[in-house]
């Protein structure tokens, strides 16, 4: 098995039917190869189709054309080898943190004894720093703690690929930093191949080995790939001050800006030359196509 192509996304297209004409391809020809043990961030403007790519890898969303291969096997349905931590923690509110994690463990390790399964659950929960809160219900936990349980549930399955769909999107910045460190620790320890969806440039640079920048939709694809050469394990304070960090960050923001300008130009062209002269277009803050037009991925 080629470790350079552990997760291979090739020429993936996701198209949604348009009632007034041709199908609209939200993602068109997305191509990405991910090495084993690599942490890759996918960054792009909101609505560009990042989450769509992730849900296709997870198998929750059908692929219109192209293919995704994980460790030599084509993705056709969801499974525990590609664990997902959703943007919302999506815990079952009627059972404890322990039971939430155990739900998947009991299924994936059905052949193991009860005590081993218990150990696995406890290990996963303590790995995210919840050793003391195992028997709490989601309603008794803060948002950050709930998200930790969501991550514990994912890593407890010992997945081949860990898929994180904006896992910090709903947290305040302090909790977010805390959780970033937790995840980095985990990844350094277990070397799990990970795909993180984010729209925060700092986060992307700090966490990943490589950043995949996506162009704006519709028809989004990989715009640019950027290697991040920080040593692991990483220390926030050390990295944040370096020139390299600012350079990576600058390049990322440059790319995102360019994407925005390109889209604006496209719009102006569509509206016709008169519009260019007479009616200055308002700054496009929202993309033409929303991610929400796809299946609901995370709330």
């Amino acid at each position, binding site marked *: 098995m080629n470790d350079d192509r552990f997760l291979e996304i090739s020429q993936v297209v996701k198209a949604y039917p348009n009632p007034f004409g041709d199908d609209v391809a939200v993602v068109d020809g997305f191509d990405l190869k991910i090495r084993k043990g690599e942490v890759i961030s996918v960054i792009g403007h909101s609505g560009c189709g990042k989450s769509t790519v992730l849900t296709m890898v997870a198998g929750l969303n059908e692929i219109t054309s192209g293919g995704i291969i994980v460790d030599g096997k084509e993705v056709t349905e969801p499974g525990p080898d590609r664990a997902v931590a959703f943007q919302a923690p999506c815990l079952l509110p009627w059972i404890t943190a322990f039971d939430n994690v155990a739900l998947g463990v009991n299924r994936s390790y059905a052949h193991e004894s009860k005590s081993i399964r218990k150990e696995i659950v406890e290990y996963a929960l303590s790995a995210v720093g919840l050793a003391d809160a195992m028997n709490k*219900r989601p309603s008794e936990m803060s948002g950050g703690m709930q998200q930790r349980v969501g991550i514990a549930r994912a890593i407890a399955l010992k997945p081949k690929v860990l898929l994180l769909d904006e896992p910090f999107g709903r947290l305040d910045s302090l909790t977010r930093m805390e959780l970033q460190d937790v995840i980095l620790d985990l990844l350094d320890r277990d070397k799990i191949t990970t795909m993180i969806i984010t729209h925060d440039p700092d986060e992307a640079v700090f966490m990943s080995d490589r950043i995949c920048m996506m162009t704006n939709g519709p028809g989004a694809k990989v715009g640019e790939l950027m290697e991040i050469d920080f040593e692991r394990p990483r220390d926030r304070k050390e990295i944040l001050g370096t020139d390299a960090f600012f350079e990576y960050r600058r390049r990322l923001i440059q790319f995102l800006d360019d994407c925005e300008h390109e889209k604006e130009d496209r719009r102006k062209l569509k509206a016709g030359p008169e519009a260019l002269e007479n009616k200055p277009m308002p700054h496009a803050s929202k993309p033409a196509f929303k991610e929400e037009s796809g299946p609901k991925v*995370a709330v």
Partner: protein
Amino acid sequence: MSEKTPEKIKYSILRFLDVTGFTVFDPLVRLAFREEPRKQVESLVKFLIIPIIFIAACTGLWWVVAPNHKTKSGEVPTPDIVISSALINDTFSNREKTKESDFLLQGEDRLESLKEVEHLMAERATELEFLEAHLAEQESIYKTRTESLISPIEAQLNALKEKNRAARTGRSSEIDTLSLQVASGERPYEALVRAIREDGELYAMGRGEESVFKDQIEAIRSDKYKPLEDARLAVNAVADEIQFLKKRQGFLSESNRSVKLEQTKEKLVAQDGKLSNAEDAKAVLREAKAFVKLEDGIGRLETQQYASAMTVYLQIKRSIFTVFVGFLMAAAIAIPIGILCGLNKIAMACLTPIISIFKPVSPVVWLLIFQIIVGAFFPDPESHPFFLFFDSIPFINTLGINPSLIFSACTVAMCAVWPALVNTALGVASIDKDHLNVARVLRLNFWDRLTKIIIPSSLPLVFTGLRISLGVEWMVLIAAEALSSSDGLGKFVWDEYQNGSSFSFANIIYACFVVGLIGFLLDRMMIVLQRFVSFDGSETAV
């Protein structure tokens, strides 16, 4: 630590009030623990005292308005009459219980009770005598009083009648002469017509004057003389008690189970002697048969129970039991089918027409249908294996499972199944998509999905449905019992309506409150259950 205990007690009381939905009394508890007294008093006044005043005002209105409406069952009863009817029902029930225990008493206890009862009877008899004398006295007072009130009016009335009669005779002779004159052409006929019309009018006027006096007399006669009424009631009450004591005496002596048993045993001994002394084959056979009969009689007597009359409490028990059976039936049908409908669109499409068509059908129709169907199933309920099976199980056989219970429960279940079914289907269909995505990623099998995700997340709506169902059931049940005269509160109401005694109307209103109160308690019970199963801890509509 010891300082914390009152706080703990307070919060556990408050929690209890919160769970049971009696948050109205919340300030009362807080006030008792001296927490912000001003604020508590303010909310007490707003949400407890003002509502109480309002209820009191409504009761007052009832009290004032009710006696003004006369019906064929007497006046509309006022609250005090309703309360006294409740007390009468309570006494009746207590007496039935006493009679039952009397029936079962044996040995020394029986003799002692018998003595006590006889002593009481003697006491009551003297009391009755005294009261009857008092009643006779009151009656004569009443008579003379009414007579004295009526006689002057009657005299006036008679004088008026005399006057009117004389006037009428005078007018008719005038008319006679007038008609002769008209016939001979002396006068025009218009005068005659006018005279006849005048005569009619004057006659009606006279009758009107008379009726004023008649009404006065009527009013005096129907005016209730309070002391007389009281005396009558007192006599009735004591007579009633004597009747009851006589019954008790019976149950403590010749109708008592142990006494009857003793007598039969004696007979058996005598029969034994007869059997051994019998000479020819025919006599032996005859005596032996009688012996077997007596032995069987002893067996029956040993397990004989007191046949209690249906008191209102027994009817309540019966109704609650029926509603419980119906509720279980409805839940057993509605929940699985509801889950199926929620999970599968095809199942939903199949069942939608059935639900839409049968949901609006009146309970009365279902009652008749089930009465026929159940009747056909059990042509001879006494010996049907279904009922014999229930009769053979201890405890269950005391519940009185019979066809009328079955069809009442079926009717009730049929009407209650729909809200539970629809709500369950809705609860299952509206499960959070994210939870299902989690299930897909974890590759849970169907069973895990059902027990870990689908059922828990739909439980609050399932219970909402069950709560509505229980409310519907209770309403339908009373109507069904009234219509089919199967035992229960509905039958109590119906019997009272048919019975037409002086307390019937009050009893019906009493039953109305009882039904309402039990319905309220059942609903509260469901709310508490709902609170326990709902994971989000959300408020439920009260």
